[in-house]
């Protein structure tokens, strides 16, 4: 009985492997080219997954309308990592197994970094539209690129801004212990100290919780006027909301993870005056005008990372056309050596590590439910 079960199991595995191979070959010589975007399509940070999905779908539609890449159409796969490092690895394996050659993702740095190792081994090119932790490209192999900036650049801008504009005030720095949050908080602290200011409190909180009253009371006890949070919008929004409910007069400063309208839904009026660093609004760039209109026609606001995802796919398609090959390694070499690449974000060139050469972080402020550049 036991032996028979083993045999059955073996047969099933063989069938599964066979079908996987079959799928792999359809991604081979003819038929559509499989590319993917992966990010938090579900879970707490699903708002960002939706941004990536919107950007990727539009890019694939536009490229296919223009004849595809090397005469072949693109087929988009969506991977859901729920911003969980373990799930990111299994999604990466899944996508690689399905014959995907290029991934525009992931969103969370904590997901992108472990996934990049899988992609590296499987020969998949990865361009993240949003993962800002320096380790992503510092430790990354041949295959890691990003269309966004890095946290050390972002932290420098934030730390300097705080030192310049909030001189003499008491500053607390909080983070959520994620690769993104802690990295950003560390860099901001470094820049703040380099500019001659010391933080009053540096602490981590547990993401996913709802009750931050203990931390909020602690902030009030320390008489803090400025709170810098390296973390995502849900927790940042809750901490701010609970602080304002206690009647505290604090300014929240955050990173690029606050660029979603969901932040305002959580804070309501308490979010007024919140500052955050993000690149100068891609929606307003002349290169994006036409694409932005296409998004608006579909009733999608191309906010946050929508255009970054669009650009990642654009760059990959351009490079493939230019060298007339789909080989991910050769595309990676071309991305670094050639360029600049014309994208909706404007021209982009890559450093040998795979970072963009000209990151531009500026400050945004939340007012009346929307954010705008200062």
């Amino acid at each position, binding site marked *: 009985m036991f032996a028979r079960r083993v045999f059955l199991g073996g047969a099933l595995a063989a069938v599964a492997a066979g079908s996987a191979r079959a799928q792999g070959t359809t991604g081979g010589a003819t038929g559509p080219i499989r590319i993917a975007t992966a990010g938090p399509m579900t879970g707490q940070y699903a708002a960002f997954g939706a941004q990536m999905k919107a950007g990727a779908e539009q890019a694939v539609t536009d490229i296919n309308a223009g004849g595809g890449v090397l005469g072949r159409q693109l087929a988009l796969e969506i991977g859901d990592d729920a911003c969980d490092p373990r799930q990111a690895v299994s999604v990466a394996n899944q996508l690689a197994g399905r014959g995907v050659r290029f991934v525009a993702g992931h969103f969370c740095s904590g997901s992108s970094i472990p996934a990049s190792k899988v992609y590296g081994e499987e020969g998949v090119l990865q361009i993240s539209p949003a993962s800002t932790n320096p380790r992503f490209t510092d430790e990354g192999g041949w295959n890691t690129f990003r269309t966004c900036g890095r946290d050390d650049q972002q932290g420098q801008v934030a730390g300097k801004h705080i030192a310049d504009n909030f001189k003499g005030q008491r500053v607390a720095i909080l983070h959520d212990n994620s690769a993104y949050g802690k990295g950003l908080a560390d860099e901001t602290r470094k820049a703040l100290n380099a500019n001659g200011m010391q933080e009053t409190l540096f602490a981590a909180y547990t993401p996913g919780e709802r009750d931050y009253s203990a931390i909020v009371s602690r902030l009030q006890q320390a*008489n803090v006027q400025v709170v810098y949070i390296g973390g995502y919008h849900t927790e940042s929004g809750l901490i701010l909301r609970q602080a304002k409910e206690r009647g505290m007069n604090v300014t929240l400063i955050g990173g690029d993870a606050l660029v979603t309208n969901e932040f305002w839904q959580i804070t309501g009026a308490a979010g007024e005056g919140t500052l955050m660093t993000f690149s100068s609004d891609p929606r307003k760039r002349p290169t994006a005008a036409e694409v932005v209109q296409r998004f608006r026609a579909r009733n999608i606001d191309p906010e946050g990372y929508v255009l970054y995802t669009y650009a990642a796919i654009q760059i990959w398609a351009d490079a493939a056309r230019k060298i007339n090959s789909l080989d991910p390694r050769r595309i990676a070499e071309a991305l670094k050596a050639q360029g600049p690449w014309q994208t909706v974000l404007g021209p982009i060139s890559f450093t040998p590590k795979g970072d963009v050469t000209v990151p531009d972080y500026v400050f945004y402020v939340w007012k009346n439910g929307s954010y705008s550049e200062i």
Partner: protein
Amino acid sequence: MAYALQQLINGISLGMIYGLIAVGYTMVYGIIGMINFAHGDVFMIGAFIALIAILLLQLAGLMDGPAAILLVLALSMLFTSLYGWAVERVAYRPLRGSFRLAPLISAIGMSIVLQNYVQISQGARVKPLEPQLPGGFEILRDGHFVVQISAIQIAIILTTLTVLAVFTVLVTRTPLGRAMRACEQDRKMASLLGIDTDRTISLTFVIGAALAAVAGTMYLLRYGVIDFYIGFLAGVKAFTAAVLGGIGSLPGAVLGGLLIGLIETFWSAYFSVQYKDVAAFSILVLTLIFLPTGLLGRQEVEKV
């Protein structure tokens, strides 16, 4: 001093919510000796039903004042009870009399089912709600530091105490309570003596779900942001509370909830915020080493 008082208030209102959920774990454990891992998700469903009720009332222009909140609470308790009943009927009753682990695995499966059900039907995004019970009272002012108790914190504490009082009376003074305690002691004997044990167990699940609905509603009103995943973390904390207080004991669950809430809050207040869970679980471990049945748990008597 003022700071400690504020953290005490924070800790109690957090602990009350843990306690309310913990009661559901402890009641089910007491009566059928299984951990209902889906209970955290029943709590999440309670919060969602409360949110839907509030939005519907707002649409009808009736969402105004404490009466409306009581109505929301009642609706949430009613519908969540139905879920609690259905969960027991579908996932646990068919397995009664099966080996001990079967309903436990079934409970984990049920938890996944409920989470995904809400994720698909309500969407994966967080659901925000603007404050419904704004305002609060200033108790003390010490320089720049204000000790405050918000209206919703008062509501949480009062509601929890009332609900617990009602259910304690239910369990200790009514025929249903007597039947529940009889099932707890010896289910076979109870059924021989004419107690409908299936019905009693069903009602236990209904009561547990109603309490989880109260917790869910309070949670929604206090924090204003829910998603399909909140049941997991809250469930783990409440389960810990139930074990700490002595699983199977009603007052133990509340005591455990309060303790977990207070330990977490005070640890975040005076030590490193990021290690508060380590602190709470270390105390759980220490307690269980010296008091294996928890703080108020009864010694298990081996029946021969």
